[in-house]
């Protein structure tokens, strides 16, 4: 293979690395002393990056299959690019205030780079490196707000527990190495035998990814970190890292563990049921909005796992489709709560009572997003969830399906609780009219339209289906 072609395969990563270098350079100059100018430049870069993602992309693998790329992977990267752009836009105010713009973006981008590497890894080693590269900056991001107690607590909780989970994962990997002897994906997928050693190895390994996408019982860090970390960082956790994690998990399960499908189906079914139920039950009693979102995201992951259990192409399509919608909805929620807490410092659900009276637009967009998460038509979330569960039911067990049905109701309750606070409850404390800057409005507009438009986007789903895995 020609070297330049392999470089072309690395295009996404290349752009990210380039941007990081640019940021370093800018850091040397005092360009970042005027935040607004700096941020506009960065957002412009991110936008270009997002657009560039749609340039035609060769498929194939480089470096003896350590690195591979395909249509699906390219699409996933595009999705993540979109997410990072939206997040950076919605975090505008906070970043501008906190005098850490450059660090923030460097960490953000390097974490994103790690995710990209994970996505297109063809070898466990690369996968591991990507994992670390993505999670270490995330810890730093969580602790970025150094003069807040909660932020540093979030940081330490994340770094320590991720270190632990990395240890467990690595242990699994080492055992896998012992069982298979070669850690490249295709050899594993060929030689993996369902014997005690490799099964144990697989579970240990799985737990690492489960930790990343915060599946019950590996989810405990989630709520605390979301609450403590700066909102836009939590947004990154909830949307980008989780989305990428889901993609990677899918890759691992579908390509790596091909031989032991029925076994991981069993495992994933258990985890799915647990995640949905526990997530919803915890979300039931949350008053802090970010914690609520954490648990709701856990429940959503449960639904995604149900979709994954289909173990078919349709499952992949549905999961990606859902993740896109999930991304849009969550970005909306986080950016609104960020704008509000940025202005008034309020993050509690009880503070949002009567929001419709004070901030009609925010509450309407949030309602759309919440309904989309709850899977209520005519929002796109309905379709996402419907397809997920449909594909899941193709292979899923009846018990799992029953639990899913119950959880649909539970989750509806959770989200309606918030909507009720907006529209029905009488506000306790007067909430001023929060005027989001144009970036936030742009994000909200984009996401809101996206959520509504994807309702009729049969084409997108079909397009995903045409891409090969």
């Amino acid at each position, binding site marked *: 293979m020609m070297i330049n072609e392999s470089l072309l395969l690395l295009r996404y990563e290349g752009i990210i690395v380039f941007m990081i270098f640019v940021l370093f350079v800018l850091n040397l100059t005092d360009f970042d002393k005027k935040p607004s100018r700096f941020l506009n430049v960065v957002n412009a870069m991110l936008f270009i990056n997002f657009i560039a993602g749609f340039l035609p992309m060769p498929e194939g693998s480089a470096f003896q299959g350590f690195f591979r790329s395909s249509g699906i992977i390219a699409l996933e990267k595009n999705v993540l690019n979109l997410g990072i752009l939206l997040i950076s836009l919605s975090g505008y105010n906070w970043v501008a205030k906190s005098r850490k713009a450059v660090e923030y973006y460097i960490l953000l981008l390097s974490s994103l780079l790690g995710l990209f590497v994970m996505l297109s890894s063809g070898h466990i080693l690369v996968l591991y490196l990507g994992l670390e590269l993505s999670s270490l900056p995330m810890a730093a991001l969580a602790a970025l707000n150094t003069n807040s107690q909660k932020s540093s607590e979030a940081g330490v909780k994340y770094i320590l527990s991720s270190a632990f989970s990395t240890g467990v994962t690595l242990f699994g990997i080492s055992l896998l190495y012992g069982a298979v002897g070669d850690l490249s994906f295709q050899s594993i997928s060929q030689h993996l035998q369902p014997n005690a050693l490799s099964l144990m190895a697989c579970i240990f390994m799985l737990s690492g990814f489960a930790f990343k996408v915060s599946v019950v019982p590996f989810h405990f860090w989630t709520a605390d970190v979301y609450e403590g970390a700066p909102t836009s960082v939590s947004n990154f956790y909830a949307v980008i890292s989780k989305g990428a994690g889901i993609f990677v998990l899918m890759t691992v399960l579908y390509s790596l563990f091909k031989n032991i499908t029925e076994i991981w189906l069993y495992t994933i079914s258990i985890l799915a049921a647990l995640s949905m139920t526990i997530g919803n039950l915890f979300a039931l009693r949350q008053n802090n909005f970010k914690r609520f979102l954490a648990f709701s995201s856990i429940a959503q992951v449960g639904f995604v796992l149900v979709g994954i259990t289909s173990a078919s192409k*349709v499952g992949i*399509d549905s999961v990606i489709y859902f993740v896109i919608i999930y991304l849009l909805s969550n970005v909306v929620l986080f950016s609104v709560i960020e704008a509000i807490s940025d202005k008034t410092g309020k993050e509690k659900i009880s503070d949002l009572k009567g929001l419709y009276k004070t901030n009609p637009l925010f509450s309407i967009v949030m309602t759309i997003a919440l*309904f989309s998460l709850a899977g*209520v*038509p*005519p929002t796109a979330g*309905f*379709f996402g969830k*419907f*397809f997920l*569960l*449909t594909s899941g*039911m*193709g292979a899923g067990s009846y018990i799992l*399906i029953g639990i899913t*049905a*119950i959880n*649909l*109701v539970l989750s*509806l*309750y959770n989200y*309606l609780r918030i*909507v*009720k606070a907006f*529209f*029905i409850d009488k506000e306790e404390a007067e909430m001023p009219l929060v005027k989001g800057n144009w970036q936030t409005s742009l994000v909200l507009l984009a996401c809101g339209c996206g959520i509504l438009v994807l309702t*009729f986007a*049969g084409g997108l*789903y*079909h397009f995903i*289906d045409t891409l090969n895995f």
Partner: protein
Amino acid sequence: MSILTLLIICPLLTSVLLLLPKSDKGTKSIALIGSIIQIALTGYITFLYQAIRSAGDKSQMLFESNIVWFSTLHINFHTGVDGISLVMMLLTGFVVLAGVLVSWNIKNQVKEFFFFIMLLSTGAFGFFMSLDLFMLFFFLEIAVVPKYMLIGIWGSGKKENNAMKLALMLMAGSAMVFLGIVGIYFASGYFGPHNTWDILELSKIHLPAEIQRVIYVLTFVGFGVFTAMFPFHTWAPDGHSSAPTAASMFLAGISMKLGGYGCLRVATYLMPTAAKELSWIFIILASIAIVYGAFATLMQKDLKYMNAYSSVSHCGFVVLGIAMLTKTAFAGAVMQMVSHGLMTALFFAAIGMIYDRTHTRMSDQLGGMLKQLPFIGTAFIIAGLCSLGLPGFSGFVSEMTIFTGSWEKAGLFYRVATILACASIVITAVYILRAVGKAIWGTVTNKTYLMLTDATWSERAATILLVVGIVIIGVAPFLFIRLIEPDVQYIINRIIL
């Protein structure tokens, strides 16, 4: 893209347009115009339908249009109407217009109110015209959440709790429906040419009995929740009682009918074998609902609760008719759906008008309304007479059709069920007449009622609209039967063979 699609677009467009104007008046008038256009459209479609049928078109569905929506999952935007769905749409048109008229003098958050109303009507229209199970489910779900908002925001009493209960129970119902239809989808893949959501294609596939059983029960119970089937009916009384007038009209007039239509079109039509085996379950439930609902109604002082429970009892007739699996009973069930829709909408409208004026719904605090509010009182009495099945109103024909249809089923079990159902007409008479005697007749107890004013033009219009509907069916049922007979035949044929 057939004329039917207009019926989805029109309310949707209305709901968007009415957000534009600044004044409440503008909003209201746009909503009114929109709903008038809807009812005109439905009328026009009915006219065309008749014309085409009389021209000798024997195809099961007319105005079919089939647009690919999500090709990968074989989801199409497949619309079409037969007589049954047509009368349902007519019902929807009537109730929507009446609901808009009744809520003419609503004060707060007018835009949102009518927005949700229009969203509901979109859902209802779409539901009735959809021939694709996914689409059906989509529109069914659309009709759930607006109800929550309507009750929660504009409601009264323990509205939060009741609205939440309603939303969650309906959601649970639709979850069951979801499981059922997805089951159908996959089963169709195994036992048919390919996976499909299409009702017409599915109606040609015969699934094995054990699969049918599961799906039949799931879908029937799921839709049964919507039609307030015992023991899943408790959302109905609470929801109705705390809902604003128009919302109650919608809930009882249309939303419950979604369930009945689903039971007929999805559960029974697509799962004939299971229906033959298992319909006895629902016959039992229905008979319980009819009698028990009627007795529970006897005890209600709150007029809205009374009507809500009586709706439970009356929708029991629908379920009974569907579960009896005879052609006459099916026809009766469809009739009963329409008739009950109009009648109960009228009832709630009358109660709402009284409530707006006297601010109480307790029958013993009212009295002498016929003297003070002759028009509204008369409307109430007419609704009452219709609900106790007086000839000349729609209630009589539908109930008699159901009774005759279920009596056609020989066998002690069916006989007993039918006799129980018939017995309810006596109890119905009791509670209706008590309500009339207490609230409408009698002398004015409360001096403040003496300066009440009678119905406004819009309320009059709504009442007359509904009464006309009721009387037309009651006096000329042959028109109605002629409309639905061939389509009922389709369903029964599939059951028989």
